[in-house]
């Protein structure tokens, strides 16, 4: 006979004085945002905003504060605000990061914090870029399971080791921080880019997938993996900590092994 445990109360009342981290420190920052509105001017311009922010705030909170309290025309993408959806990659103090994962207190608040759209993709307005070329490359590597033969009647089994082989590259949230940090991509936007290769890697090394050869052939293109110069900008930029350059090298290796 089992005795059912009473569910713990979801609300816990703390005695006064217990818990909490005390006063959250606040500080003043200056946000320097690169603005662009093709309906007003073809030239981008810089705007500065002074804000009082708290130690728990992120760059995204500062952008929200500007948009909600100072200048409603400021445009940027964000959705989850918790580093999951990959909407708000931007160039903050010269580095590609997610605004929702960058705490203000980790930046140098004595100087203006510079926020720009990610580089290499056409800017549509303020911090919003046209992601279509990025997603086109993503689509080209066929980011879906392709299997030969009949549909199995039960789930497709895989050992823990087989799963581990491509675990790193399953973490991608398609934020484009890597591709838009790559100097080869900046030149002419022809390169497939790290994100497409990372997502190809995720299927190429998946034991359940049978179209690895097709993907390797696609990435053996003139604008494919061989344009990678191992600059490591992508690895530095990735907010999920994916070893992007390593994944690209593994794809290079796989193409070589297949051809030779």
């Amino acid at each position, binding site marked *: 006979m089992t005795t059912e445990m009473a569910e713990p109360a979801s609300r816990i009342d703390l005695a006064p004085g217990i818990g909490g981290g005390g006063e959250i420190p606040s500080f003043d920052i200056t946000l320097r945002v690169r603005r662009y509105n093709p*309906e007003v001017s*073809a030239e981008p311009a810089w705007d500065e905003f002074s804000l009082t922010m708290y130690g728990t705030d992120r760059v995204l909170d500062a952008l929200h504060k500007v948009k909600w309290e100072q200048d409603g025309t400021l445009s940027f993408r964000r959705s989850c605000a918790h580093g999951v959806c990959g909407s708000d990659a931007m160039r903050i103090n010269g580095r590609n990061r997610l605004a929702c994962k960058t705490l203000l207190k980790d930046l140098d608040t004595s100087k203006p914090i510079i926020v720009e759209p990610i580089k290499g993709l056409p800017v549509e307005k303020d911090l919003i870029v046209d992601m*279509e070329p990025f997603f086109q490359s993503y689509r080209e590597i066929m980011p879906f399971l392709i299997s030969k033969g009949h549909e199995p009647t039960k789930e497709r089994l895989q050992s823990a080791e087989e799963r581990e082989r491509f675990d790193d590259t399953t973490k991608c949230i398609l934020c484009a921080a890597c591709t838009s940090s790559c100097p080869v991509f900046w*030149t002419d936007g022809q390169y497939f880019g790290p994100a497409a290769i990372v997502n190809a890697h995720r299927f190429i090394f998946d034991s359940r997938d049978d179209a690895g050869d097709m993907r390797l052939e696609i990435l053996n*293109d003139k604008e494919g993996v*061989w344009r990678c*110069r191992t600059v490591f900008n992508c690895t530095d930029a990735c907010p999920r900590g994916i070893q992007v350059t390593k994944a690209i090298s593994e794809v*290079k290796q796989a193409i070589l092994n297949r051809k030779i």
Partner: protein
Amino acid sequence: MSATIETPRSGRIAPQYRRSKGNGGSFEMIAWLFMRLSGIVLVVLIFGHLFVNLMVGQGIHAIDFGFVAGKWASPFWQVWDLAMLWLAMLHGSNGVRTIINDYAERNATRMWLKGILYAAAAVIVILGTLVIFTFNPCPVVNGVPLPGGFCPAP
């Protein structure tokens, strides 16, 4: 001023991002592989070359016309220098080719720079090869040896 803003996700791609189809073939893969392999071989060839020329025997003080002539009298050094010439030129030119591809933004600029590069590389490789194989330290023109004093009197 007003700009037309297209519907998001209409599937259009700004023309400069459109990738031309049919870039297949494994040229880039072979070029990539060649860079690594020739690099390894060149390390051996170049350091061997420097060691023999600058350190063995009297070292750098022994280098003169006669020294070079002596080296090229042996097929071993002919092949060594030929390999060094070809590998270094192809390795270097391919490196500059990738730099041009990475940094030149306009197709016309790219084409011109690469044209000049290929022409320069071809001239150097052909001239160098010619010199290695046709080198004659004691040329005799119309029965008269050219002056220089390196060669034994006939």
